[in-house]
C-alpha cells in the first residue's frame, strides 16, 4: 500500500481544513507539515501512539498553540478570526473543573459566553447527568465527568466538535456510552474531529482516519479502506490431533507463509475463503481431528506496522498525549 500523501487541502466546503501545519517545541518537531480536510458531518479520527503529534495538532486547531507555519480553516474561516472560535466546541484531554462546581453551574457558566447555546437543563437530560445536576464535580464518576465535558463541548451548538481522547480512562460501558453520544452529535450534522490511540475506538467510531506517526500523517482513509489497501495478510491458525504434516500444509494453494508453533500451524494468506476450504479437506484426508481453528483478519494495528515499520506500542493501552 502506498502511504497516503498529505492532502493538499483548500476545499471551500471542508468543515476543517489543515494545510502544511508545522509545530516545533525547541528542537522537537511535534507536527511536521501535515495537511488534511474533514467534511461536514464527518467523524474524523487522528490515530497514533503517544507522542505522534495528535494532541498538538488538535491544540493548533483550537487556537491553544500557535503553529510555526501552515494554515487552519474552520468552515472556510481562518482559525485566527474570532468568529472561527465560536464555531468550535472542544473536550480537552486531562481537563477538570473545580471540585465544588456542579454540572448545572458549569453548563450555565460556559453557556453564558455564547449568543446561541443549549440550555443547561436540556443538556443535563440529554447527557444523562440530571441526577447529578447539583452534585459537586469531585463526586462524579469518570463516565459522568466525561459526559459533562461532552455536554460542555456542544453547549455553543458548534459546527465542529474537537475531542481529544474522548474514551481515555473510561471503563468499557462508559466508553460505549460516550461513543453513542458522539455518534448522536454527528448525526445532527456536526463535524467531529477526534484524536485517539485506541485502535478499537478508531475503528468503531470514525468514518475516516488519519494515521499519525512522529508528527507526520502517514495515511488518510476509512478504516475499511486502510485495511483493504494494506498488504497485510489474513492469519489462519489451525490445531489438529495429530498435527498436520508439513507436506500437507506447505502445498496449500494461495498460502504465502506457514510456520508451526505451540498453537499449531499458522498460515498467512490473502485468500482466506479458498485456504479454509482446502485446509478442512486436508485435515479430513489426513484423518486428523480438528481441535481449533482461528481466523484473524488484518487490523489497523497491522496497517500501522506496515506503514511505520514499528509495532503498535503496548503501553498505549493507557492514556497519553502527544
Amino acid at each position, binding site marked *: 500500500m502506498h502511504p497516503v500523501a498529505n492532502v493538499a487541502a483548500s476545499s471551500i466546503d471542508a468543515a476543517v481544513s489543515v494545510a502544511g501545519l508545522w509545530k516545533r517545541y525547541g528542537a522537537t518537531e511535534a507536527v511536521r507539515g501535515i495537511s488534511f480536510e474533514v467534511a461536514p458531518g464527518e467523524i474524523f479520527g487522528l490515530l497514533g501512539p503517544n507522542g505522534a503529534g495528535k494532541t498538538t495538532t488538535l491544540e493548533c486547531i*483550537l*487556537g*491553544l498553540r500557535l503553529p510555526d507555519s501552515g494554515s487552519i480553516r474552520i468552515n472556510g474561516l481562518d482559525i485566527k478570526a*474570532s468568529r472561527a*472560535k*465560536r464555531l*468550535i466546541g*472542544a473536550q*480537552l484531554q*486531562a*481537563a*477538570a*473543573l*473545580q*471540585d*465544588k*462546581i456542579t454540572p448545572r*453551574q458549569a453548563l*450555565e*457558566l*460556559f453557556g*453564558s*459566553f*455564547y*449568543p446561541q447555546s443549549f440550555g443547561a437543563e436540556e443538556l443535563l437530560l440529554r447527557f444523562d447527568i440530571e441526577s447529578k445536576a447539583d452534585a459537586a464535580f469531585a463526586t462524579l464518576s469518570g463516565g459522568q465527568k466525561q459526559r459533562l465535558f461532552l455536554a*460542555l463541548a456542544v453547549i455553543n451548538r458548534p459546527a465542529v466538535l474537537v475531542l481529544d481522547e474522548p474514551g481515555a480512562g473510561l471503563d468499557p460501558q462508559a466508553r460505549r456510552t460516550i461513543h453513542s453520544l458522539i455518534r448522536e452529535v454527528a448525526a445532527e450534522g456536526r463535524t467531529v474531529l477526534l484524536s485517539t490511540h485506541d485502535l478499537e475506538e478508531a475503528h468503531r467510531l470514525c468514518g475516516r482516519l488519519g494515521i499519525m506517526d512522529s508528527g507526520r500523517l502517514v495515511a488518510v482513509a476509512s478504516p475499511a479502506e486502510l485495511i483493504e489497501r494494506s498488504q497485510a495478510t489474513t492469519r489462519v491458525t489451525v490445531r489438529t490431533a495429530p498435527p498436520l504434516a508439513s507436506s500437507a500444509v506447505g502445498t496449500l494453494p494461495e498460502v504465502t507463509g506457514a510456520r508451526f508453533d505451540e498453537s499449531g500451524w499458522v498460515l498467512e494468506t490473502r485468500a482466506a475463503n479458498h485456504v479454509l476450504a482446502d485446509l478442512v479437506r486436508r485435515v479430513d484426508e489426513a484423518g486428523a481431528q480438528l481441535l481449533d481453528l482461528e481466523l484473524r483478519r488484518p487490523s489497523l494495528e497491522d496497517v500501522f506496522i506496515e506503514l511505520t515499520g514499528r509495532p503498535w506500542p503496548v503501553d498505549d493501552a493507557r492514556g497519553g498525549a502527544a
Partner: protein
Amino acid sequence: MSTLPEWKGWVRHFLLTIGLNFSNPQAIVYGYLVPVFFLVAFGSVFRSDTPPLLSRMGQILTITILGGACFGLPTALVAERERGIWRRYRLLPISISWLVLSAMIARLLIVASAVLIQIALARAVYGTPLPARPGAAALAFLFVTGAFLGMGLLIAALADNVPAVQALGQCIFLPMILIGGVGVPLEVLPAWAQRVAGFMPGRYAVEVLQPCFDARQGIRGTGFRLGALAVIGLAAGISGTKLFRWEAGQRIGRPARWWVAAGLASWGMVGLVAWRTGKLQPVPADARAWNTITEAQMGQIGFDGLPADNDFIAALAPSHSDPERTKVLAGKLAVWPPGQLDDSGQSIRNLVCVAAVADLSEDPREAEIARLVYQQIRRGFVPAVARQALAWIILGPEDGQALTKAPELGLFRHPPERLVRQRSVVYAKKYLGRALGKIPE
C-alpha cells in the same frame, strides 16, 4: 469584551468565583478563621491599650488583606491552572485576562468581607472604635488590597504549583510580619529594621489604614504611602500579567527574570525615595502617645512661672517682630523634613527642639527662631493635633526623640539632649498657653 453574552459570562464567572470560595473549607479557614486568630492574638498582647486595639487595627487589617491577596488569590489561580481549568477557559470567546480580572475583583470582595468581619469582631469583643473616616478607610483599603492583589498575581505567575505558592507567599509574608511593621509593631523594632521596613509595602499598608481610625487624621498626609502602594501594586500586576500562565507545565521564558526584577525594583525605588526624603526616620517606642493626650490632661497643665519672653531663658520675639532677614529662615523651616514627618507629634517635637537648641546655643536669632517655630506649628498643623503634641512634650519630656542640632537651619552647636528636652518643655508651655488663650499673644 464587546458583546452582551461575554459580559453575561464574565458576571457569571465573577459570581461563581465568589460562590465557590465560600464552599471551600480551606478558603474559609485561611480567609476568615486565621485572621480572627491574629485578632485574638493582638487582643491578648495589647489588651492594656486604651481604647483597646485601636492603635493596632492597621496591622490587623493588613495581615488579613495580605493573607487573602498574596495567598488566597494565587492559591486559587494556580490550583485551577494545575487542574486544566484555565486551559479550558482559553477556548471561550473571551480574553483570558478578563477572567483573571474577574477572579481578582472577586478576591477583593472576599478580602473586604474578611476585613469587615475583623472590624466588627474587634468592636464586639474588645470595644474597639469603628473607623472614624469610613470613606478614607475604603479608599485606603482599595489601595492596599490592589497592591497586594498585584503581588498575588505575580506569585501566581511564578509558582509552578500550590506548594510553590506557599513558599513564595511566605517569602513575602514573613519578612513583612517580622520586620516590616505589619506583625511586630514598627516602634519596637531597631532602627535598621525600621529602615528596611520602608522598602516593604506592608509598612505603607499599615500607615494608610491606621490613620483611618483617627477622626483627626484620616488619610490626609499619606499621599506618599498611597503612591508607594500604587507603584508596587502596578509593577507587580503588570509583571504578573506578562508572565501569567494558563497551562500547567508551561515554562517561563528568560525574559521573566526582567519582569520579576521590575516587580522587586519598585520596592527598592519606593524605599529609596522614602529614605532620601526623610520619611524613614526612626519611630520612637511611644511615638503615638501624643494621640492619647486628653483635654482633661491639658487642663491640668499650669502656665505660671514661665520666664518672660524677653528673658535670657526661652526668649520669644513679639508677634510683630518679623524682620526681613528672618524670611529666609522661615522658608527653610517650612520645608524642613524633620518638621514634616507623617507622625505629627514627633514633627512638632522636632520643631520645638529647634527653638530649644537655638536658645541653648545662644544663637543671636534665638527669639526670632522661637517665634518662627510657633508660627510654623500654627501654620502646618491642625490646632487640635498641635495642642495634643505640645501637651505631650510637656507631660512626657522624655518621650519621643529629641533633636540636638539642626545644621540645615544654621544651628550647628550640639547642646546636651537633657537640656534640650528641659528647654523644649518651657517652649511647649509658652506655645500651648498661647494656643489655649491662657497666655496673651
